[in-house]
């Protein structure tokens, strides 16, 4: 099936540093999402993105977070500066339209020390 690629698969970073998580969505998809997974189970919505703009974001999407997709390249999640509570697995997802099936990447495991 359609593949969403995420880079890196895992990263360890010092608290206060910046991290960028990269997502290569399915090629014809227009809607992009970031989710944060904690405790290996709960999927928590962070943000969705369409047509170059953030459409909706949750309370978890702190001021230190930002997303962009410059010129159709990677859809990125940047955290600057990182905090200990940012440690989690971050999943990127994409869909053709706002109402269609979501396809997920394998996740980027972030450990902030």
């Amino acid at each position: 099936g359609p593949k969403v690629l995420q880079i890196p698969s895992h990263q360890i970073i010092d608290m206060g540093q910046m991290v960028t998580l990269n997502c290569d969505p399915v090629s014809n998809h227009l809607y992009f999402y970031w989710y944060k997974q904690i405790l290996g189970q709960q999927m928590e919505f962070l943000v969705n993105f369409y047509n170059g703009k953030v459409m909706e974001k949750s309370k978890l999407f702190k001021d230190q977070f930002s997303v962009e997709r410059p010129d159709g390249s990677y859809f990125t999640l940047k955290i600057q500066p990182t905090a200990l509570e940012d440690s989690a697995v971050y999943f990127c997802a994409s869909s053709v339209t706002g109402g269609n099936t979501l396809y997920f990447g394998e996740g980027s495991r972030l450990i902030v020390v």
Partner: protein
Amino acid sequence: AQSVTQPDARVTVSEGASLQLRCKYSYSGTPYLFWYVQYPRQGLQLLLKYYSGDPVVQGVNGFEAEFSKSNSSFHLRKASVHWSDSAVYFCVLRGGDRIFFGDGTQLVVKP
């Protein structure tokens, strides 16, 4: 308010037994419902989806789910589970541009 509830955080069954994972939703419009599976250290994979029509939808690996508007449910079933089905299963609701996840049900299949 829109929401998805998976009342069972963990379900344990024996290999070869039948399975039902429960999902209840709350949504005023026409829901698009999905079941995803997540194997350890992997992303979410689509098992099946329901948009309209036949309320029983077939998915991969012998899974099926039944939509019930009257019960606001979308339970996942499998006739005979295999040890490789051990994973976390998520029920997901799409209403317009919004997406709602259940908290997931961890399925443990005993040999």
